[in-house]
């Protein structure tokens, strides 16, 4: 299946919150001086009176978001780079946003491997495990522009904290305009019988390519896209795993405690299944062009296909 290249998720986010604010006057946006990168500048241009620049001071920004959320039903949408959301503001998010279940939506841009020549300081591989481990937190990693908009709209109907994992590059379109997103639901992208593959975020596009490659070799992949990493529907994960009896998880993030960890936790307790975790192997990153990074860190469609072949071979 050939995918059409679409917008970066950050642009989809900027457009989605701008449109939502047209009919929701409770939305306010807080920016940590990254709006021209993470694209809250789209919102500022349309709703300057509800856009607050809080400068390069992330812990304060997330604390202030929590305070704003206690006033008149305001819905603060906070944006900066993923590394600064998760690492720099962790304390404020944990105590003032997660513990009281503050209605704050966190837009974490530049997550994962492809963050525009920034290097190991900015490449956030462990955001999913860290945010997933936090009680009361919802973690969403949309796969394309359509899903980003749908997920943001769904999150605005949900009263509680949500972490959005957003990425930088242009992203292939996975879904059509009729796509319905529901927090906590998985999406079966492709029915298959040999091996079940779970993926999330824009990485799913590379997994679709891998499934096409494998189909040419007679390997029939059952592909499940997981936009909501927490909460994760146990019954859907178990049912998808039981379709083939063999599971590979693959993600643009660390294999320690991320999507793979979440799937393995469910299956080990409810339906023990051989699981192979594919992703970034407990290391930090470096700067470089996207294509070179995908090659070096083993996240191309060919690498995904290899992981699937190896798992099948090991479990013959």
């Amino acid at each position, binding site marked *: 299946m050939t995918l059409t290249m679409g917008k970066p998720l950050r642009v989809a986010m900027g457009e989605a919150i701008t449109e939502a604010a047209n009919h929701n006057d409770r939305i306010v946006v807080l920016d940590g001086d990254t709006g021209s990168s993470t694209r809250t500048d789209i919102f500022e241009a349309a709703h300057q009176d509800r856009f607050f620049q809080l400068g390069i001071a992330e812990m304060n920004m997330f604390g202030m978001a929590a305070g704003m959320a206690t*006033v008149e039903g305001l819905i603060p949408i906070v944006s900066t780079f993923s590394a600064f959301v998760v690492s720099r503001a962790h304390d404020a998010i944990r105590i*003032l946003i997660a*513990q009281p279940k503050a209605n704050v939506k966190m837009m974490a841009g530049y997550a994962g491997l492809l963050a525009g020549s920034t290097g190991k300081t900015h490449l956030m591989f462990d955001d999913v495990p860290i945010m997933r481990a936090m009680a009361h937190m919802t973690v969403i990693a949309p796969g394309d522009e359509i899903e980003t908009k749908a997920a943001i709209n769904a999150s605005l109907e949900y009263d509680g904290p949500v972490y959005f994992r957003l990425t930088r590059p242009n992203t292939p379109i996975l879904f059509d305009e009729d796509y319905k997103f529901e927090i906590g639901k998985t999406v079966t992208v492709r029915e298959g019988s040999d091996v079940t593959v779970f993926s999330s975020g824009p990485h799913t596009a590379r997994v679709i390519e891998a499934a096409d490659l494998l189909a040419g070799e007679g390997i029939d992949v059952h592909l499940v896209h997981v936009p909501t990493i927490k909460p994760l529907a146990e019954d859907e994960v178990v049912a998808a795993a039981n379709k083939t009896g063999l599971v590979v998880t693959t993600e643009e993030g660390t294999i320690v405690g991320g999507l793979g960890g979440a799937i393995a936790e469910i299956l080990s307790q409810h339906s023990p299944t051989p699981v192979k975790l594919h992703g970034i192997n407990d290391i930090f990153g470096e700067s470089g062009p996207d294509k070179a990074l995908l090659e070096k860190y083993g996240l191309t469609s060919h690498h995904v296909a290899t992981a699937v072949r190896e798992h099948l071979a090991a479990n013959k």
Partner: protein
Amino acid sequence: MTQTMTSTAAELAEYARQIRVQILKAVYVARAGHIGGPLSAADMLSVLYFGVMDIDPENPTDPDRDRFVLSKGHSSIALYATLALRGYFPVDELKTFDSVDSRLQGHPDQTVTPGVDMSSGSLGLGFAGALGIALGARAAGKDFTTYVMLGDGECNEGVVWEGAHVAARYGLDNIIALIDHNKLQQFGWTGASLDERISPYLGDQLANRWRAFDWKVIEVDGHDVAAILGAVDEAKTIEGMPVAIVAHTVKGKGVSFMENQPGWHSKVPTDQELADALRELGEPEGGAQ
């Protein structure tokens, strides 16, 4: 209906005395908690809750109420004693302080305690939350005032100065910070000998920090209720910039043998110490009941 209580200076001093008595009793019963910081904050809390804030204990979430955030969250028992005496919950409930299933947790929890407007505990964060409440009020067109109390030790935290910058940048004149400048923190700086602990900020350093961040600074004796009331009244007239009331206080204020003693930062009094302390505070019956 929210409303402001009108109290004379003598009445405010009496409420402060009762707050101190309840602090000591509760820490004694809980066998845990802080004493020095709560005692230094008692007079300011009395003035806010019994003479300044437009609030309604019957409706603690009234959207038009004034807000208070105790950013120096480890002084929680001082806030709980104040809220109980103001009628948010029974004074008797203070006996549950710091116990399992209690609404009165070790640090303030906005999800369980009536009257607690913002959780706090990790120092500096309550200040950020309070600034958010103030900015939110502006965004939503509400005209209530947000009060926030910080410790001087708490002002070591970088996030305080992140927020101080942003508040001044936005000219937030609907927030009033009260800085409990009691000159001692938990362990702090060593003085002439290892037994002596000295202020984290020498001379005017702390007040000057806030001035340098373009806050209007009002210095006051933090144990003179009439002066505190005057400072808050003045603060409310300031337009276009946030106000920090730097209150010079004594850690452990009100009990002679606890004053200026770093050891009473968090320590449980013995039976004799409690009796002596309560006698000094004009409660000759003594005892925790």
